[in-house]
C-alpha cells in the first residue's frame, strides 16, 4: 500500500489532488481511498488531504501518519508545518518551490529524499492562476509510479471540463520540470 499526504492551503485544491489520484488508481483497477482531514473548510488555512492506493481492498479508515510520499502545494507552509514528519524510509517529499533541492535541504534540514518544482510559476503561466494542485500531480508522476499518467487524464477531464486541457498541460509540464538530487 502507498500512502500519500497532500499539504496545501484551503482553496488550493489539495483535496482535489487526492481525489484525482484515487480516481486514477481506481480507473487502473486498483483500490484507492481519498479523503480530507475533516473539518470546517477555511480558505487560506493549512489543510491536508490523504490518499491510499493498493492492489487489494483497503481497510484502514484512519488518517495517515507515516506517508510514503508527502506533497507540498504551497511553499509558505514549510515554515509552519513539517511535511517530512513521519515519512517512511525510502519515501519522498515533493515540494512546490522556486528553490533547488539543495537549497531546501540546507534551509530546512530535511533528511528525507527530496524533489522540487516551481509549480506556482507553471500554474500561473499555464492556468493563469496560482493553483498548484494539478501541477503537483505532475511532480508526483515524475517521482513515483503510483499511477500511469494516462489514467489521470480521465478524472481531470471529468472534474475540470473546459479548463481540463490547461490543467493537463500544467501537469505535463511539471513531469518534465521536477528536479531531484542526482
Amino acid at each position, binding site marked *: 500500500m502507498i500512502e500519500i499526504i497532500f499539504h496545501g492551503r484551503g482553496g488550493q485544491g489539495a483535496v482535489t489532488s487526492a481525489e484525482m489520484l484515487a480516481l486514477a488508481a481506481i480507473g487502473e483497477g486498483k483500490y484507492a481511498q481519498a479523503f480530507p482531514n475533516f473539518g*470546517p473548510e477555511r480558505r487560506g488555512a493549512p489543510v491536508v488531504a490523504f490518499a491510499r492506493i493498493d492492489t487489494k481492498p483497503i481497510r484502514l*479508515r484512519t*488518517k495517515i501518519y507515516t506517508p510514503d510520499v508527502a506533497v507540498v502545494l504551497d511553499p509558505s507552509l514549510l515554515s509552519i508545518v513539517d511535511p517530512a514528519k513521519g515519512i517512511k524510509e525510502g519515501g519522498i517529499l515533493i515540494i512546490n518551490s522556486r528553490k533547488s533541492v539543495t537549497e531546501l535541504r540546507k534551509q530546512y534540514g530535511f533528511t528525507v529524499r527530496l524533489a522540487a518544482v516551481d509549480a506556482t510559476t507553471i500554474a500561473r503561466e499555464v492556468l493563469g492562476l496560482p493553483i498548484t494542485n494539478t501541477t503537483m500531480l505532475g511532480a508526483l508522476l515524475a517521482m513515483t509510479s503510483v499511477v500511469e499518467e494516462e489514467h489521470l487524464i480521465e478524472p481531470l477531464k471529468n472534474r475540470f471540463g473546459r479548463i481540463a486541457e490547461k490543467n493537463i498541460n500544467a501537469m505535463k509540464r511539471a513531469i518534465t520540470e521536477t528536479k531531484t538530487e542526482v
Partner: protein
Amino acid sequence: MGKRIGMEVSLMVSEAVKLADVDVIAAYPITPQTHIVEHLSELVADGHLNAEYICVESEHSAMSACAGSSAAGARTYTATSSQGLQLMSELLYVVSAMRMPIVMTVVNRTLSAPLSIWNDQSDIMANRDCGWIMIFAENGQESFDQTLCAFRIAEDRRVLLPVAVNMDGFILSHVIEPYQTVEEEIVEKFLPPFDPLYTLHPDRPVTMGAFAMPELFAETKMAHEIAIRDSYAVIREVWDHWGELTGRRYEPVEEYMTEGADTVFVTIGSYGELGMDVVDRLRAAGKKVGLVKIRLFRPFPYRDILNSLTKFENLLIVDRALSVGGVGGPLASEIKTALYRLEKRPNVFSFIAGLSGRDVPPEKFIEMYEEAMEGLKKNQWDEFTMVGVRQ
C-alpha cells in the same frame, strides 16, 4: 455486473436512491449528510430523477413531510445527521408506529455540546428505541447496497416499517473509494414498485395515526414490537436475494478470523473494516483474536449474537457512543443483556472509542486488547473504558 467506479460514498448513496426511483425526498441539509441531499436535489433539478424534492425549513418538517408523502403512497426518502436527527426525534416515533416504510440515511455525527461536526454514533443511539429498523454499513459499497435493500425491506407487506441506514460521518461519507454499481434491470427485479396497503385518498377516506385510549395503546405497542421482531426473517430474505443478484452477501452478525479465537472484538459500523486489519496484525503476532461485526442493530439479532459470542472467552466491545450516566456503551449494554441468561458468560470489556471523530488507528485497538489482557491477569477491570481519554 455493474460498473466498478470511484466515487464519494455520499454520492453512492444518492445514486442508490436514484436507482430506487423514489417519489419524494424531503430533507434539510446538515453536515456531514449534506453531499447526499445536494446531489439528490441536482439529480431532480436536472431531470435525472423524477421525484418531488421538498425543501423544508427543519428536520422536524422533513420527517413530517415524509409522513405525509408515505401516507399518500409515495416511496419516500430522507437523510440527516446529529442535531437534525434529534430535531426529528418526535416524528421518528410517530412514523414507525404508523408503520410508514420511509427510508432514511443517518450519516452518524456526535451531538452537541460542545458543538462538534465530527463522527460518532450518539445521534442514532439516542434514538435507538424509536421503533425503526436500524442497519449499520461498514464501507461505501455497503452504504450503497443497504440503501437499496432498505426500500425493499421497509415496503414488504410483512414489515411496513421505516428503515435507518447508518454510515459513519466523514469516515465513510466523505471518502472517495471504489464501488460496484448495479444495473437498472437488476434493481427492477429486486425492488418492485411500492404497493401500499392503505393510502390517504379523498375517495377512500381512512384515519391514520388515530388517538388511542389506555385500553388499546399497549396492544399497538406490542403489535409494533412483533412487527419489528418478525422483520428479521424478511431482512435476511432480502439480503439473501441481493446476494444472489449481486454476489454481495450480508448477514445480521458476521465473523472474521474467529476460528480458534479465545478473544474477539465486537464492532458496529466502519470499525468493521479497521477491526479486520487489527485482527490480521494480532494474528500475525500469534494472538488468538477474531472479530464479530454487528450489522443489524434493530431488531437486535439476539439469537445470532448468542450463537456467535458464546464461543469466545473474552469480548472486547467497541462502541462509538457513551450512555452518559448509564453503564458505558449502548452496544455493550445490549450484548450484556443478551448474555444474562447464560450459565457461563464470556468476560465483557466495554470500550468507548472515537467520540467526535477522534482518530482511532489500529494501534488503539491493540491497546484495548492489551488493557483487557492486563485486566484478566488481575481479574479486575472497569465497567467501561473511554479509550485515550485525558483526565
